[in-house]
């Protein structure tokens, strides 16, 4: 008898192949995303943590005006590892810079990922992405600063995981910049190399921040002028990788959860229908002595097998794709990869979660029916479902018949309505999410309309007098808010009539530079608005300064406060006419030794193009996935609606409705729900965007605007509507095949 029952299961599955396939795909997608995203974030986190611990990533680094003679004493005093290293930017070509770093032994120890360590003079270890982008292999020669080096290996550095040229950059391109490690001795004949101290505190129990502050105070007391102080927490080279890890980790929950929730909802709906349809059979089986448990097992088999199969297939696809994905991420970040761990636990979660979701929903549905007595069940579907509250609530008289019919169709099954709404909303959110990230990035990097200069020169020492032709002076200092030393930013004094820094408000009007302006990203981060008076501490001397903020400028890439340079100098008690740097429209002839940094604005675009290229393919992928999800959901709902309406469709045919009229009534009944679902998706996408961005902002000092651009909304809407049309086409045939005899024979079986 059990065998016979099991045969029935196969028949149930076969009858609605496409539907179960749809659910299967949702589960596969859910498990796949979970295992890949979780695997990716966990692996990356382990790789990065292991690397930074084993190779002693610095807690901070700084430069001084004169060498620290007794490093050992300082190490003892502060219970820290302190090591000095040299850094020099060698120009390989107009656009290509190789930063030469001296090999260290105690802090930021280089990790050889291929080849061997340095042993003889004239050898170099290269950052692998740089080497690949510029065609250097192990054994090849590289010419830098009039010296020829032989590449003996590839290297990862704990303080250059993301090899940004400047700590405040966001993007880098290996075609423009890379790092190489050479012997310390090689620096003896390189002039103007910078000397940098890296510090790693041994005491991990005390606040690192406190220890850093003490160290800094001590250096000041000892008469050192400290510059380029950067804590690891503010160092994008080390921190940006955590943004990716966190991003993946966040992805690993809501997307699979949405998929599993959707599948459990729809399986619940389908089983409720199956079980009601079969209530007479169930009653009869009961009456013949079947136990509830046996019947329960019988009906639960399908959802459980489906969930298990989906989880398995998802895992099978996911597991082999973790490694190449980690490797793809690693090509972006420079971290050694001793091995990839595939987590058994993740696979278990990926398989068990959908089983729990689907099992629970079908269990509840099936139980609610099986609870009834055999007699009740054998009466069958005759005790018809009650009119639900939603159906009764709406007074629809003033609508056209077709509108009424479609509305009724939707209100008829609240669970179906919820499923459709939820499904369309999640697909839309996913789609909008992708587009919004793309748009935000695009917006952020479009700084060309803010900064009209091509070059930014920063001097080692204060300069006096007028700027050369085509250039403007600026002065700058690092500050932090009174109660939060974690947030660091620059306050920059610029010329009050500057034509090179053009700030605009959110309406696009130019903001004058003779007042105090803050960029939007910084304002958001500090929670400041125009009109506020705020106090910040100067990092150099620890003195508080008060500023009255006049306006907020729409600039996302940089976190700055701009004040007129005269006011800045007065506040900082700097000489009038003094400046630390120049903005220039053309390249200036300034001796290298006078400069501490040069930034060319034209460097950004290539890095941006690469980054945007990756973004676009990711967004395209997200759009495809969300379209597939939307298609499955719409198909499931429409085909269910058709099945529920077979008799009505048949009746309409008898009454002389034309094919097109029936299609339009039945198939278009979901239109307003689809549109509503999409509209709900917009604020949800913006809100989830906002929270993710807020998180990223804190993590990597980057504030992105959650901008939902109308164009992308239209594109997403078009994509959703297109899948809707497609699902309608897939179902149109089902409507045509309903025969008139169903209505004519209704009630006779």
């Amino acid at each position, binding site marked *: 008898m059990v065998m016979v029952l099991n045969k029935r299961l196969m028949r149930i599955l076969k009858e609605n192949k496409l539907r179960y396939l749809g659910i299967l795909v949702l589960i596969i997608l859910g498990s796949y995303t979970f295992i890949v995203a979780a695997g990716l974030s966990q692996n990356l986190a382990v790789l990065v943590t292991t690397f930074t611990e084993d190779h002693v990533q610095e807690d901070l680094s700084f430069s001084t005006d004169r060498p620290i003679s007794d490093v050992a004493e300082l190490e003892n005093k502060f219970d820290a590892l302190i090591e000095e290293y040299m850094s020099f930017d060698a120009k390989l070509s107009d656009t290509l810079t190789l930063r030469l770093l001296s090999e260290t032994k105690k802090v930021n120890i280089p990790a050889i990922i291929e080849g061997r360590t340095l042993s003889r003079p004239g050898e170099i270890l290269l950052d692998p992405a740089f080497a690949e982008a510029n065609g250097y292999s192990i054994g090849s020669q590289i010419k830098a600063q009039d010296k020829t080096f032989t590449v003996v290996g590839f290297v990862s550095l704990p303080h250059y995981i993301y090899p940004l040229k400047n700590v405040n950059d966001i993007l880098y391109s290996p075609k423009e910049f890379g790092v190489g490690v050479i012997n310390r001795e090689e620096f003896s004949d390189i002039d103007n190399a910078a000397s940098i101290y890296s510090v790693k505190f041994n005491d991990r129990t005390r606040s690192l921040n406190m220890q850093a502050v003490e160290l800094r105070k001590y250096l000041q007391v000892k008469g050192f002028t400290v510059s380029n102080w950067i804590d690891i927490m503010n160092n994008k080279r080390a921190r940006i990788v955590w943004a990716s890890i966190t991003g993946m980790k966040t992805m690993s929950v809501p997307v699979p959860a949405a998929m599993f929730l959707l599948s459990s909802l729809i399986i619940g709906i389908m089983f409720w229908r199956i079980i009601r349809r079969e209530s007479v059979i169930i009653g009869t089986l009961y009456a013949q002595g079947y136990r509830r448990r046996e019947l329960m097992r019988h009906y639960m088999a399908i959802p459980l097998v489906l969930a298990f199969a989906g989880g398995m297939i998802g895992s099978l696809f996911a597991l082999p794709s973790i490694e190449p994905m980690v490797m793809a991420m690693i090509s972006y970040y420079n971290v050694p990869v001793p091995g990839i761990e595939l987590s058994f636990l993740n696979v278990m979660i990926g398989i068990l979660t959908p089983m729990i979701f689907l099992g629970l929903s079908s269990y509840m549905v099936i139980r609610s029916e099986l609870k009834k007595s055999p007699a009740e069940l054998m009466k069958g579907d005759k005790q018809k479902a009650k*009119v639900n509250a939603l159906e009764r609530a709406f007074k629809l008289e003033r609508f056209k*018949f077709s509108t009424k019919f479609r509305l009724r169709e939707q209100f*008829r099954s609240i669970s179906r309505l919820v499923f459709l709404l939820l499904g369309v909303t999640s697909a839309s959110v996913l789609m909008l999410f992708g587009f919004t990230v793309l748009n935000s990035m695009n917006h952020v990097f479009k700084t060309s309309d803010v900064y009209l200069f091509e070059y930014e020169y920063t001097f080692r020492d204060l300069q006096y007098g007028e700027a050369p032709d085509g250039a403007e002076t600026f002065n700058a200092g690092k500050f932090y808010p009174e109660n939060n030393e974690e947030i660091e930013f620059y306050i920059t004094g610029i010329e009050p009539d500057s034509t090179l820094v053009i700030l605009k408000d959110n309406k696009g009007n130019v903001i004058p530079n003779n007042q105090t302006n803050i960029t939007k990203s910084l304002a958001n981060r500090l929670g400041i608005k125009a009109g506020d008076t705020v106090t910040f501490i100067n990092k150099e001397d620890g003195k508080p300064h008060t500023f009255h903020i006049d306006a907020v400028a729409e600039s996302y890439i940089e976190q700055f406060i701009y004040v007129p340079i005269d006011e800045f100098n007065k506040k900082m008690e700097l000489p009038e006419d003094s400046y630390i740097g120049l903005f220039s429209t053309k390249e200036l002839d300034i001796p290298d030794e006078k400069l501490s940094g040069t930034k060319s604005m034209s460097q950004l675009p290539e890095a941006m193009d690469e980054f945007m290229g990756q973004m676009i393919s990711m967004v395209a992928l997200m759009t495809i996935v969300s379209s597939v999800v939307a298609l499955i959901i719409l198909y499931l709902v429409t085909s269910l609606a058709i099945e529920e309406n077979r*008799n009505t469709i048949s009746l309409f045919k008898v*009454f002389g409705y*034309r094919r097109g009229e029936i299609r339009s009534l039945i198939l278009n009944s979901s239109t307003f729900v689809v549109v509503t679902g999409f509209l709900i998706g917009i604020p949800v996408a913006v809100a989830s965007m906002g929270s993710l961005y807020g998180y990223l902002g804190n993590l990597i000092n980057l504030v992105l605007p959650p901008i939902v651009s109308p164009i992308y909304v239209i594109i997403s809407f078009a994509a959703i509507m297109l899948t809707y049309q497609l699902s309608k086409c897939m179902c149109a045939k089902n409507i045509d095949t309903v025969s008139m005899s169903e209505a004519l024979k209704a009630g006779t079986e």
Partner: protein
Amino acid sequence: MFIDVSDLRKTYTSGMIKNEVLKGIAMKLGKGEIGVILGPSGSGKSTLMNIIGGVDRGDSGKVIVDGIEVSKLNDDQLTEYRREAVGFVFQFYNLVPNLTVRENIEVVSNISKSPLNIDEVLAEVQMLDKKHRFPRELSGGEQQRVSIARAIVKNPKLLLCDEPTGALDFQTSRSILKLLQQVNRNFGTTILMITHNTAISAMANRVFKLRSGEIVDEWVNQAPIPAEGIEW
């Protein structure tokens, strides 16, 4: 003649077995008349009526309704024919469950060229006060009234009723029959009705007795009695 069927044949073939359901039916019904088809179960009553109503086709023979040769129409033309000319009443009412009474009637008025006023039709079947109810909130007799209202709202030339009282008790059946008679009188609708119940034939102008796909008997009632007078 309003309905003119001649030599209508229909055979169902399932596998090797041929089942000749209609074996050369010939029947005529005048405009504005009530016709009743009697016969045992399986004799082909519904099949015959469905062919006349344009929801099924015969294999051969001619079916003419009000000058339209129904047997020659293609699928689209049949749809138009049903849309324009025919009203259906079923044994089990066949109301759309998630539409209210009024909306169920709109199902048909929505597609007809010159429908009658819905409220007037509802008043005619004495269901005006229940027009916002859903079918499952009505008794069988009430549902059948709504189904009749739905059939007549487009003012069809021909009303086909397949055992309209088959699922109802005596009293309710009689009131439904009375309603049909009233429709026939007030709107001049030609009605063809199937029944198991010989007593009902008393209210018909013409009676056709079917057995195994053949009309075995056929008579004309010179004076059909009002439905109130029917007893069984």
